[in-house]
């Protein structure tokens, strides 16, 4: 850490002015008037000024999807607190905020839709009146649920996860400038998917894509928050073209918390059916996701909920399944896929329920998992929703996790009790993470973005170095390191001489970008493919220089070798670029720069997975939860760089602990977000994240280059379930059951008091 990062907020351009927005103070209201003081006319812009700018539309092709249009500045109505109403520009942000504070809004308050379950009921206020209801999309999936109904164990619960804010260290930020000579808009934006941002911008601005260049410099964490097209990006693009000088908007923490995008708010009504020995007979579920007011570009408002139906069964075998899902519009920020996307909620719901099945069956929770997980000899395995598991040994991961926390010793300790009055509990969870899923999966969603072949460009430089250009982006994943490792593997060039170029639509091949744990699989595969072809070209030139038959030379350790001798890639590059007179006339004219595309053998995704085990101590009087031990047994296929993988897992774990114990954006009945600073919206810090113990398994994927699998999100998926199960394990003797995240002291004590009251009235 040397403080040399260059983020959007570090960009300095001559004539740069700052933007602050007037945002809606109400969740749902009709705009009767926007009053700008005379002295600030010309510095304030509203939707009436944005002539020709189209609203953001992210349409899903799934049948029944209802379209929302998100105006970049509100028109007619505001549908969430924080919605952009007017744009104010001034030499500094403070002055722009002064102008924004002088603008007054005349709003006619409308009833706010804040509860996704009530929002589904007839008679609810409507977020988008012309829909007639508040449901973006309803989906149904069923495989023979009637076969499960006679199971001797039937457990039904309601389970929910709180609404969260993704909270990367760096928020969003935009610096827009227009070059009249090139007729080109350049948008610097903290973005995960610059090429997708460009497509979305072009659609909203009515410009050709070639007129727009999107540059995403260093990015301080993405997690999904930086995957969407922002109304702010459209606004600033328009503004710089109007004003002729660069403009900047940097998201502040309050904007991030109350106005930007949220995630994770799921509700499940779920029933598990099982035999007495814990064998799963089926799952019946109704899942509702609070999608917020608008469908975000490009993922849409329904990716999260509709995905629930397909991923809920996960790595478990079962003969019957039914899941109905609802993506519900409310007067809140749009929901976005956050690290783990729907899997964190799904894992929470299913793994909490499996513990209840274990309790009913009188079995260890680990035993119930082992009884129902897909077995290694069944790989590749198609589960009940036709998810195709490529490889892995799930039971082994679970067994190792149970052994690592020493489950038997914990049971003995629980029997003894704790001197300080706290209660010890242990919880496990397991998940699968479908990653790098491609065309066949995403074409089914019909959203504005479908990944195809991933491309990479590889260029040997005249001095023998290598430049790699990729359309994915790195926001802390260390892809500058791991992609260079891949190129080194293929060409033998020292990683110190390999440069990775990313984050710029003008310099990189088109890509849907970095999301869905896809970059190592897709860009890694593309880099390997491009480097392989580059190696072939170098071999043909080297063979000429060695006066060999090209078929008789090999590329090893950065040299083309034949029986008579060898020639280095450096010499080959120098000859090609600087001394072409040394090349024979019939040399391959293709040169030493190639762009190649890549897809895995199957594009249904890699399946990495991990078993998590948590040991906690719970204070039933104060409701405090301390994590005493945390073990993760992870299988991400072949690991390109174990240190980078460990970093991903630790970071994900921290976010998972946030979901489990701390993070929650509550709203009041009028739709006001109540956690407006980080004093109210609690993120785990260093002292809240234990030194987890990691164990790796490495089952190669049969479908990808090198057998790698995507692992970027997994760390954030399983912790809420493992921790909740551990808390419930600790408190089960008191009759306590917590089915909602986060597990706050208030919720723990409330449940303890309720259980005591129930015990008293029973006695």
């Amino acid at each position: 850490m040397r403080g040399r990062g260059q983020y959007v907020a570090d960009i300095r351009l001559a004539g740069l002015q700052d933007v602050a927005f007037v945002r809606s103070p109400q969740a749902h209201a009709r705009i009767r008037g926007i009053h700008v003081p005379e002295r600030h006319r010309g510095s304030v812009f509203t939707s009436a000024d944005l002539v020709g700018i189209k609203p953001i539309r992210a349409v899903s092709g799934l049948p029944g999807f209802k379209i929302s249009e998100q105006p970049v500045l509100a028109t007619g109505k505001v549908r969430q607190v924080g919605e952009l109403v007017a744009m104010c520009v001034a030499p500094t942000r403070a002055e722009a905020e002064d102008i924004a504070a002088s603008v007054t809004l005349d709003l006619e308050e409308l009833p706010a839709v804040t509860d996704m379950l009530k929002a589904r009921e007839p008679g609810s206020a409507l977020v988008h009146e012309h829909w007639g209801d508040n449901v973006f999309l309803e989906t149904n999936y069923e495989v023979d649920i009637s076969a499960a109904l006679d199971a001797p164990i039937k457990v039904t619960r309601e389970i929910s996860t709180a609404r969260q804010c993704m909270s990367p260290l760096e928020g969003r930020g935009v610096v827009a400038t227009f070059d009249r000579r090139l007729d080109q808009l350049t948008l610097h934006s903290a973005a995960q998917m610059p090429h997708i941002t460009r497509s979305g911008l072009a659609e909203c601005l009515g410009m050709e894509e070639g007129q727009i260049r999107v540059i995403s410099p260093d990015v301080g964490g993405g997690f999904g928050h930086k995957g969407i097209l922002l109304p702010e990006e459209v606004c600033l693009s328009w503004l710089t073209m109007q004003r002729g000088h660069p403009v900047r908007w940097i998201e502040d923490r309050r904007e991030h918390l109350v106005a930007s995008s949220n995630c994770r708010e799921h509700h499940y009504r779920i029933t598990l059916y099982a035999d007495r020995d814990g064998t799963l007979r089926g799952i019946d579920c109704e899942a509702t996701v609070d999608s917020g007011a608008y469908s975000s570009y490009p993922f849409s408002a329904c990716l999260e909920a509709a995905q629930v139906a397909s991923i809920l069964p996960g790595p478990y075998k079962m003969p019957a399944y039914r899941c109905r899902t609802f993506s519900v519009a409310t007067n809140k920020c749009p929901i976005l896929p956050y690290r783990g996307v729907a899997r964190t909620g799904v894992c929470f719901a299913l793994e909490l329920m499996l513990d209840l099945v274990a309790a009913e069956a009188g079995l260890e929770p680990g035993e119930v998992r082992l009884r129902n997980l897909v077995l290694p000899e069944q790989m590749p395995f198609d589960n009940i929703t036709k998810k195709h598991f490529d490889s892995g040994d799930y039971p082994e991961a679970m067994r190792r996790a149970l052994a690592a926390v020493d489950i038997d010793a914990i049971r003995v300790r629980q029997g003894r009790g704790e001197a300080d009055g706290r209660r010890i509990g242990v919880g496990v969870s397991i998940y699968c993470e479908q990653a790098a899923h491609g065309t066949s999966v995403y074409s089914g969603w019909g959203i504005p973005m479908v990944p195809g072949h991933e491309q990479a460009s590889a260029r040997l430089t005249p001095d023998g170095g290598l430049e790699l250009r990729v359309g994915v982006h790195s926001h802390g994943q260390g892809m500058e390191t791991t992609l260079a490792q891949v190129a080194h593997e293929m060409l033998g060039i020292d990683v110190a001489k390999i440069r990775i170029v990313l984050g710029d639509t003008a310099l990189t091949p088109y890509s849907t970008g970095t999301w869905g744990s896809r970059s190592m699989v897709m860009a890694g595969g593309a880099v390997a493919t491009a480097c392989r072809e580059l190696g072939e070209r170098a071999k043909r030139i080297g063979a000429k220089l060695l006066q060999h038959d090209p078929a008789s030379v090999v590329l090893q350790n950065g040299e083309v070798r034949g029986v008579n001798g060898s020639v280095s890639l450096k010499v080959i590059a120098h000859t090609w670029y600087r001394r072409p007179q040394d090349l024979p006339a019939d040399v391959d004219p293709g040169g030493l720069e190639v762009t190649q595309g890549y897809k895995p053998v199957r594009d249904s995704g890699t399946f990495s997975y991990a078993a998590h085990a948590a040991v906690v101590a719970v204070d039933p009087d104060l409701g405090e939860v301390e994590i005493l031990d945390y073990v993760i047994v992870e299988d991400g296929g072949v690991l390109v760089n174990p240190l980078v993988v460990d970093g991903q897992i630790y970071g994900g774990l921290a976010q998972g602990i946030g979901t489990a114990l701390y993070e929650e954006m509550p709203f009041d009945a009028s739709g006001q977000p109540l956690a407006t600073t980080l004093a109210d919206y609690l993120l785990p810090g260093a002292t809240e994240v234990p030194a987890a113990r990691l164990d790796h398994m490495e089952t190669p994927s049969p479908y990808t280059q090198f057998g790698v699998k995507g692992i970027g999100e997994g760390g954030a998926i399983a912790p809420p379930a493992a921790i909740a199960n551990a808390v419930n394990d600790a408190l089960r003797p008191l009759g306590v059951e917590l089915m909602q995240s986060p597990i706050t002291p208030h919720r723990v004590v409330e449940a303890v008091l309720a259980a005591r009251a129930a015990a008293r009235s029973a006695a």
Partner: protein
Amino acid sequence: MKPAPFSYERPRDLDAALSMLAASNGSAKILAGGQSLGPMLNLRLVQPELIVDISGLAELKRADIFGEELVLGALVTHADIEDGRVVDVTRGAMRGVAANIAYRAVRNRGTIGGSLSHADPAADWISALSALGARVTLRSLAGARTMAIEAFVVGALESALQAGEVVEAIHVPTRSASAHWGYAKSCRKTGEFAHAIGAVLIDPAAATARVVIGAIDTAPIVVTDAAGLFGGRIAADYKERFDARFADALLARAGIDDVVQRHIHVGVLRRAVQEAAA
């Protein structure tokens, strides 16, 4: 998150500061460590016309013992106390409290006088100093007045400070050799504001106790005659005699309607009592 425009003065001595405050007719805010005022300015929750930055006033940074009490200048920082740079008459009680205020970065700049002036119910000093029986001196151009901490804090973010007045000093009585001290709090995470505070100063030999329940929605509950919390008398067995129902009733009387909150407060207070007895 930029503050609304304000004027800024950094007076050289307390008299100059008091004159500026008097002249501002209540439109000024005093800046000391700025650990609460800074964010409030940035969030535009306060929009003063004038900021009077008193952080340069050496006369408010002193710590002297006068007779049976320690007089701490308002600008003594939490870290000054945590690190033992100022003398301690509480046999470690204040150092222990200071060491657990927020984060070190906050403790480096945050001041004891600023914390009291802000009167955040969840902050540590208003509860800890009430239990220790401390007093505070307020000064204006018109003169000085001194009052008990519990009289100074009148509600959430509300103190007895009047326009033109500044917290000048805190008077901490020497903790007697026989007095037991217990301080406990529950925070969602390390360094966050507490959602429950219990502070007790119990002297079984003298049969006296001061008990504080803090971090409630209003001023802390300060019980100066706490015999009722211990079954009517304070003696060596006070830990066993702690009456949770009495504490719960105190909270209910203070308007804490949520039974869960009351339960947590009582639990934290019990923790403080146990610590005192340990």
